[in-house]
């Protein structure tokens, strides 16, 4: 095991204000179960889980609420015991509605119900087979906890003919304000180590690269200590501080120097699997203790919250409860962001609940939020220089603005990772990322419509 500096620097990137000192150094606090939980069936990428409970049912902590629904999907469990008040569509942070189970956790268990927490049987990872471990990862409801929420068991099971050569641990946490992964590495280094050993076994002993940005020297030290006596090809790679260093593709380039081709290519096509440190710790718990993923560490920060904290809250905790746990609002909140400032979603209400991918909740005051109206592109090229995916963001935005989705597609808008570096650097305050997202959504809708049409024709 050794620590090395990253040999590769990707093109572009920006340096936003990190503001990490607000929540840095605040040890992870476990939040008590709030009176009401709203557990979404769509906490991951892919098909939402199929809800199997109904209003009036009493559910026990760890009981299955939603079944896995398709190949790219993960099950959802009850984060706490309580009475199901209703099953209804609720808004998620990104704007779409998905069915959610509303649980009243203050209700007492009816007679005859065994109210002890449901867990899975602990597995000995050294003797368990790869299939058993993979099934466990899925049964525990684990999906990528970095942000996208890709089902982990799919990622850990490369398609035939493809081999994982590098397992990359994503501890970059390049989003401003967020410290959840940082503290997880500091406080649960042993979990991360065990998770890595289990994943190495599942993936057939690939080399391991632990990628951490240089602004977290204590996390690097903690990882060095935890992995000191590990055998095999394991390296800690210290990455330069640059946004979006935590993006999967940029992390692969920064650590092993490989470039992931355009979509639909995946990291496994260049022999890499990238996992967030939170996911790795969850895998360790799921295998060793049989623990189901029922909570996650979320950073509640910003200059409009009384006490910024790193909170381990049950999944489905409403933002309003999270804010109350952190001492409430401080002054007037001008903007509430689910996630980080660069890739997070501004939300208009605190009546939204956390999911497996909620890495942060930011409350910003008017001093931190800038009211602007966007103007015409002045062709300065700053977005082009900032784009880490080598896209001509200005041209794409102009094409989308005039409804020319085809030109945007020709300019490879589908490779856009929506990191926000272009909008961040635009002096005319143009919502370039939003334009790209719009183009991507309409292209995806068109492809889906074409597929449906082809399927209908084939059925005929």
């Amino acid at each position, binding site marked *: 095991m050794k620590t090395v500096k990253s040999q590769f620097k990707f093109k572009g990137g920006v340096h936003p204000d990190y503001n990490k000192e607000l929540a840095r150094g605040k040890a992870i606090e476990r939040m008590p179960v709030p009176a009401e939980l709203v557990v979404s069936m769509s906490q991951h990428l892919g098909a939402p889980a199929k809800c199997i409970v109904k209003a009036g049912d009493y559910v026990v902590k760890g009981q299955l609420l939603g079944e896995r629904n398709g190949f790219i999907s993960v099950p959802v469990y009850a984060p706490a015991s309580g009475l199901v008040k209703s099953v209804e569509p609720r*808004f998620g942070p990104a*704007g779409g*509605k998905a069915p959610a189970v509303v649980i009243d956790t203050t209700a007492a268990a009816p007679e005859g119900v065994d109210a002890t927490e449901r867990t899975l049987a602990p597995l000995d990872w050294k003797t368990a087979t790869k299939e058993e471990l993979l099934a466990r990862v899925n049964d525990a409801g684990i999906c990528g906890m970095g942000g996208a929420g890709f089902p982990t068991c799919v990622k850990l099971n490369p398609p035939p003919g493809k081999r994982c050569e590098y397992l990359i641990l994503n501890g970059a946490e390049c989003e401003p304000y967020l410290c959840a992964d940082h503290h997880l590495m500091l406080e649960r280094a042993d979990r991360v180590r065990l998770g890595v050993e289990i994943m190495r076994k599942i993936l057939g002993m690939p080399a391991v690269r632990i990628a951490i940005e240089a602004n977290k020297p204590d996390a690097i030290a903690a990882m060095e200590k935890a992995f000191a006596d590990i055998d095999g090809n394991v390296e800690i790679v210290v990455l330069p501080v640059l946004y979006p260093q935590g993006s999967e593709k940029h992390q692969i380039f920064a650590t092993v120097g490989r470039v992931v081709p355009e979509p639909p290519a995946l990291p496994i096509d260049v022999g890499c699997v990238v996992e967030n440190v939170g996911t790795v710790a969850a895998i360790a718990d799921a295998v060793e203790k049989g623990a189901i993923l029922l909570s996650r560490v979320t950073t509640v920060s910003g200059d409009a919250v009384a006490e910024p904290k790193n909170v381990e809250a049950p999944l489905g905790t409403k933002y309003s409860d999270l804010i109350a746990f952190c001492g409430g609002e401080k002054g007037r909140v001008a903007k509430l962001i689910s996630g980080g400032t660069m890739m997070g*979603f501004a939300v208009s*209400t605190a009546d939204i609940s956390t999911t497996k991918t909620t890495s942060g909740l930011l409350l910003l005051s008017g001093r931190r939020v800038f*009211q602007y109206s966007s103007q015409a592109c002045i062709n300065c090229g700053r977005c082009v220089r900032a784009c880490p995916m080598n896209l001509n963001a200005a041209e794409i935005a102009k094409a989308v603005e005039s409804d020319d989705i085809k030109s945007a597609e020709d300019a490879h808008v589908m490779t856009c990772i929506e990191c926000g570096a272009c909008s961040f650097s635009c002096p005319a305050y143009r919502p370039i990322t939003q334009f790209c*997202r*719009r183009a991507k959504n309409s292209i995806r809708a068109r492809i889906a419509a074409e597929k449906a049409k082809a399927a209908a024709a084939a059925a005929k």
Partner: protein
Amino acid sequence: MTTAILIIAGIGLAAAATLAVADICLSVKEDPRIGLVTAALPGANCGGCGFPGCDGYARALVAGTAPNGACAAGGDACAAAIAKILGVAATATEKRVALVKCCGTRSEAIRVGDYNGICDCNVAAATAGGDKGCTYGCLGYGACANVCPKGAISVQDGLAKVDKRLCIGCGKCVAACPKKLIELVPASATIHVLCNNPDKGPTVRKVCGVGCMGCHLCERNSGGKEAGHFTFQGFLAKVNYENPPTDEQIVAKCPAKCMSVDPHFETGH
């Protein structure tokens, strides 16, 4: 001089002969009725019939694969003209126009955020459901107005309005609206419920001053449930356009003020 004239004349003759032969040998036999039917259609190429433009619909009509009367823009006169050409019976159609089922203007419906991104409803709706407190209501960023081939829709006070005279009922706005609150209704119907929120009364009242509470008063005032002028979806009244109410008194009696007599706006084009 003479040689030049002869050469040019010769080339001309040869080319003319080639064209004459090509016209005979390579001509595509087209049913003459297609041209006639196309001429009878409005020529707006709106796509409302489900075919690619008026020509596409005309071909389908002549081939007998489309019903006569699918052209909402042309209406009965057009269907009658086509019936004359093709010798088929016209299915009677009523002109349908778009209706925006929301009356929550900026002063009536609360906005919970300041949205200053791209001015398009679909993008705004993808940002935490939009900035309107009512998640079912019109966002007013004009996705419908942008796709309207006739310029019949304009956004006023944060609300899309349809000009009934210009609307050809093509249904493009219906497909473009992310909130799915535009409906094609018979042009003759005058009484409408301008709300799309099926939530309970108190929930609706929190976000909008003119939202339907599902009190059933409109139904009671129009002859009760047996009369069948209204249907209810959750706590939302819907006009049964198969059997629309005619008594305009019920509009004034609506306690939520979400009903209207002929809400269509005239642009003055």
